[in-house]
Structure formats: structure tokens, C-alpha cells
């Protein structure tokens, strides 16, 4: 079967949907690149991570729009274009840049439908690169998904592999609500089997990556592969787990977590963002409220500490929950009671 990197899988989804639906446009900084340059070459970037490569030559400047460094205008323009009938996919180069355009995300896109009495929709997708692990420093490495998951009106997607990324992106663009789509930088080159052509993955349906009996692990984004590594090691001691990848944080498929807990009674949540008011805390809280009786031990929230993302390799490595930390925490959790 054909393998694609997550980068190329998302690229393919964009191509497919722009082909299928003339209302889809893409806009952002350097989504093609080369405008105003001296080489005369357009598509000189295709996005700084190459995710939008080839769209400009195929769909032209009117639908693949390079913008100035003006994130509020980018997201705001996506909003306005959506209200006016298009289906914009805006690229926010790094999720950390939500800070300079957050109003258009949480006060505008998220609230139009409600404030306007259900009489309109704002079908935008904001694609953005997320996560630590590349030593990009405190302002280019954050996992910002809790901030948008908490906002009613938004949908939040965090794919953990190329296959899901393609299917979720097609769903996202076709979805009539505003979607924030987090693409982990470290996953861009990671390959998996990706079918050609059209397929969608519904929002709000978790992926049960593995099934097991001793504990339930919920892992987000890049943490899924780390959990798999840890489970490989634990398997040698006969320890198995349900590994649940929520795929979308809003809507969240909490039911699948509760069901798993009925069997295992033990929960570990692995989240790459700092602990307070995080998605890990959110899920732990939901379980404390809705699946309390299934719990046989304290919930383990495995997250980085309450600090910004450090730069130095050694510090960043210590910051991110890795396979070893997951393995250790799982062993610990199995002893707790």
C-alpha cells in the first residue's frame, strides 16, 4: 500500500477538495511564496512546511493567496469570505501566533452563528503547526489546543498520523463550522499508509489504536506514537492497554473513554501542553464527573511541567513526555489502587 508523509497527506486532501469544490480557497503567509521575488518563481515555498506546495500552479493566484504578515487580517478575511459563501482554509504558520489573531478566532468565527441566531455559518479551517521537539523555543513550540477547545463554537482537530490527517482534513473543509486543525511539526515527515482519493473521518469519533486490559491511555497528537512505543515495551511484561486517540478534542468522544474505563479502571492521559486547564485536566475532570465509579485509582495526567517550552535540547527533551516517562507512569499506575 502507498505510504505518504503527513505533510503530503494533508497536501493531497487540499488538492482533492479544491478540485471538487470551487469555493475552497487557501490563504496565508508564503502558502505559495515567491510573490514579489526576483527569481520570478512562484510556489517558491508552498508553505514553510511545504504543506500547500503545488496548489498555486494548479489553482491559481485567486484561490491560493499569499498574504502579508497580518494574522488578524488573514483569519478575519477567512471569516468574511466564509460568510460571503466561500470555504477558506487559512494557514496560521505556527499555532503560537494565535496571540496576534485570537479575536478573529474566538470572538468572531466561534460566535457568529450563535450571535446571529443560527442564521449563518462560518465554514473556515485554520491549519496551524503545533508542538515542541524541534528546539524552536518558547514562542514556536506550544500546544495551544486547550485554549480553543474551551471556546464554544469551535471544533478542534489534532491528527496523530498521515492517514487520519487526510481524512480529517477533508471532513474539516466540508464541515460547516469553524475548525482549528493542529498539525504537529514532528509528524509532518512521518509516513503511514494513505489511500488515494476521497475518504473522510468523522469528528467526535475516537480511534481505538490498541486494545488491552490493564489500563486506558488517552494520548493526543504526537503522544500517540510515544504511547505505542511505551506499550511495546510494556507488552514484554504482559501489560496491555486500551490506547485511545481522540482525534478531535471538540467534539470529544468521551463515551469511548468511559467505556474503556469500565474494563480497565485505570486512566492515564498524555498531553504535550502544560498541565493547568489543559485537555488532560479536562478529560480527567470529565471522568471524575461522569465515570467516577469506574475508576479504581487516581487519574494520571502526564504532561510537561508548568513552564514555557525551553530551547536547549536537553531541557526540551525533559519537557516533553516521552516513551520512557509513559512506560514508568504506566507501571506506577498499575501499582496504585
Amino acid at each position, binding site marked *: 500500500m502507498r505510504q505518504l508523509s503527513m505533510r503530503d497527506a494533508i497536501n493531497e486532501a487540499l488538492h482533492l477538495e479544491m478540485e471538487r469544490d470551487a469555493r475552497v*480557497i487557501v490563504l496565508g503567509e508564503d502558502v505559495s511564496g515567491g510573490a514579489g521575488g526576483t527569481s520570478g518563481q512562484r510556489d517558491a515555498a508552498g508553505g514553510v512546511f511545504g504543506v500547500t506546495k503545488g496548489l498555486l500552479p494548479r489553482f491559481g493566484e*485567486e484561490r491560493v493567496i499569499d498574504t502579508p504578515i497580518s494574522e488578524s487580517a488573514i483569519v478575519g*478575511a477567512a471569516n*468574511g469570505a466564509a460568510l460571503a459563501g466561500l470555504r477558506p482554509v487559512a494557514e496560521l504558520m505556527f499555532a503560537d501566533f494565535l496571540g496576534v489573531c485570537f479575536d478573529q478566532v474566538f470572538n468572531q468565527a466561534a460566535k457568529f452563528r450563535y450571535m446571529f441566531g443560527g442564521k449563518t455559518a462560518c465554514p473556515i479551517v485554520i491549519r496551524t503547526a503545533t508542538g515542541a521537539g524541534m528546539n524552536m523555543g518558547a514562542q514556536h513550540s506550544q500546544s495551544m489546543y486547550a485554549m480553543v477547545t474551551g471556546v464554544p463554537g469551535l471544533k478542534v482537530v489534532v491528527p496523530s498520523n498521515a492517514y487520519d490527517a487526510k481524512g480529517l482534513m477533508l471532513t474539516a473543509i466540508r464541515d460547516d463550522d469553524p475548525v482549528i486543525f493542529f498539525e504537529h511539526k514532528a509528524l509532518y515527515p512521518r509516513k503511514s499508509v494513505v489511500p488515494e482519493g476521497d475518504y473522510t473521518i468523522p469528528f467526535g469519533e475516537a480511534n481505538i489504536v490498541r486494545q488491552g486490559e490493564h489500563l486506558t491511555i488517552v494520548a493526543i497528537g504526537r503522544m500517540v506514537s510515544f504511547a505505542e512505543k511505551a506499550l511495546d515495551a510494556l507488552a514484554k511484561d504482559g501489560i496491555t492497554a486500551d490506547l485511545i486517540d481522540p482525534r478531535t478534542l471538540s467534539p470529544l468522544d468521551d463515551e469511548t473513554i468511559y467505556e474503556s474505563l469500565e474494563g480497565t479502571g485505570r486512566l492515564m492521559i498524555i498531553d504535550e501542553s502544560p498541565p493547568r486547564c489543559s485537555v488532560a485536566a479536562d478529560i480527567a475532570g470529565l471522568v471524575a464527573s461522569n465515570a467516577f465509579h469506574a475508576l479504581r485509582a487516581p487519574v494520571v495526567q502526564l504532561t510537561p511541567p508548568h513552564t514555557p517550552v525551553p530551547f536547549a535540547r536537553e531541557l526540551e527533551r525533559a519537557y516533553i513526555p516521552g516513551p520512557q516517562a509513559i512506560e514508568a507512569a504506566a507501571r506506577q499506575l498499575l501499582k496504585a489502587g
Partner: protein
Amino acid sequence: MVFERDFLIRAYRQMRTIRDFEERLHLEIQTGEIPGFTHLYSGQEAVAVGVCERLTDQDWIASTHRGHGHCIAKGCDVTGMMLEIYGRADGLCKGKGGSMHIADMSKGMLGANAIVGGGPPIAVGAAIACKVQKNGHVAVAFGGDGSANQGTVFEAMNLAVVLKAPAIFVFENNGYSEHTGADYAVGSKDIAGRARGFGMPAEVCDGGDFFSVYEAMGRATLRARRGEGPSTIEPRTTRFFGHFEGDPMLYRAKDEVARHRATLDCLQNFRQRVTSEAWLSDADLDAIDQDVATQIDTAVTTARSAAPPSPAELETDVYVSY
């Protein structure tokens, strides 16, 4: 310049409707029946109407916290608006939005906006859509002198220039942002000059004169519809009430509003002009006044006795599907 009778009648009716709507709201707010806080547009009618008379339902506008005038000028249903402001189930937004969030896509009205500077990027997006759809329509961003200091607005202006988007920026300079004078907060003393600095044509016009605004808008829409890019107009105007209802206006000279009502009233200006040119008669205008008064009275009466939204409405309309 000669104007059709129907055109003048409609323009006057629109301005009068805004004026009556707002003056009546000013009274009704004192009954305590209207929730929230409200920013009235009285005094600025010539701007909203001068701008919107250049537009069709397929053109777009993005409005502000002071949005009633824009809504009416763009054709939103007046009773629906009044119901909304009262927070009623049958309001234009089912009572969920309120005064600062009235919208009606079917009229090309992208929404009032309670965030200063929220609208202009949205308007530019709508203008981009017009370009992609190649439909010859345009999008207008309304903003005040105060909004001309918000970074999002400048980003929108530059983006429109870069993309040659059919966008028009209308900065209603009424001299104040809340309790602060534009002379203080707009460092350049002039908003049009900023727009020129961003590479688009810009002109100051008389916001108390419908014809002045209408002419300036004509140049801007022509340019936009021809695909030549955005323009800015800066109508100088005045507001007859406080920033919001309840504002004691300590920052304004005691007689300022009275003076402005006497000398800068765009409705009086209009009447004066059209009667002295003999385009319309006083009787024509009086008839409109009568008619509008009845309409507004009906809107208020309807709104006062209308049903509130049912609590079941609380959780609907968040998503199309979830």
C-alpha cells in the same frame, strides 16, 4: 447633478428611519425594559445612508458597536431589529445577539461587532470572495475614528491594497472614541492620510451632508467595481448622544450637542437642500416623517409585548452540527 425623485425620497426615508429609531430608543431605554448597553447613531445618518445607497443587497458591509444606522441603511427589517434589541424570540438574531450583534446575510449585512476593529478584516474577506466569485460586488468596512487606532484595521487595509480587493473603508470621524477626543487619540489628526500611507486613495468628506458622502462613495465604488482596489473615505460627523446610553458626556462642552443639533443635522441639511433645489417639497418630506413615525411606533409596540426566547434556545445555534 440631478437626482431622481424616488432616489431622494428613499434616501430621506432611510435617514429619517434611523433618526426616529434611535431617538425613540433613547426614550425607551429609560424605561429599563431594554437589556444591555446601547450605542445610538443619531447625528450620523447621512454616512450610513450615503454609503449604502451606493450598494445593493449583494454588496457587503461590516458594521460596528454603533450599528443600528448601518443595519437600517442596508435594509435590515426595522421591527426585527427592534425585537432583537429588546431581546425577543422573534428578533433578527432570535434575541441571542442584541444591539451589538445584529446581522442579516440576506441583506449583505455581515454583522455589527462589539470588538473595535473586528469588522474590517471580515469586510476584506467578503471583498476577496467577491473577487473570487467575479460578481462585481464590493464590501464596505465601517469604523469610527477610534477604530483607526486598532492594528487589525491597518492589517485589513494593507491586505486589501495588496490583493486589490474591492473593499471600501469608511471611517466615521465623529470626534470621539468613548470619552476621548480624536484630536488626542489619532496621532496624525487625519485618518485619510493614513490610508494614503497604505497606498490607497482617500478623501475626507462632510458626514453631515448626504450628498457629500454619496459622491465620495461613488468614486470609491466605481474604483472597486472596476477591480482597481480599495479606497478610504473619512466622513466628518457628530453624534447627538453619549457614547452609550447613560454617558454623562463630561468630555464635551456643555452646549456642543445643542449646537451640533442646530447646525450639523444631516436631516435638516437634506431638507434644506432638496427643497431649495425644488427636488422635493416640504410636504413630501413631512409625509415621510409621519409614515416613519408610525413604523417605529409599531416596531416598539411589537417589541415591547413580544415573547422572550424560550430557555430551550440557550443551547441551540452554537454549531451547524456537533
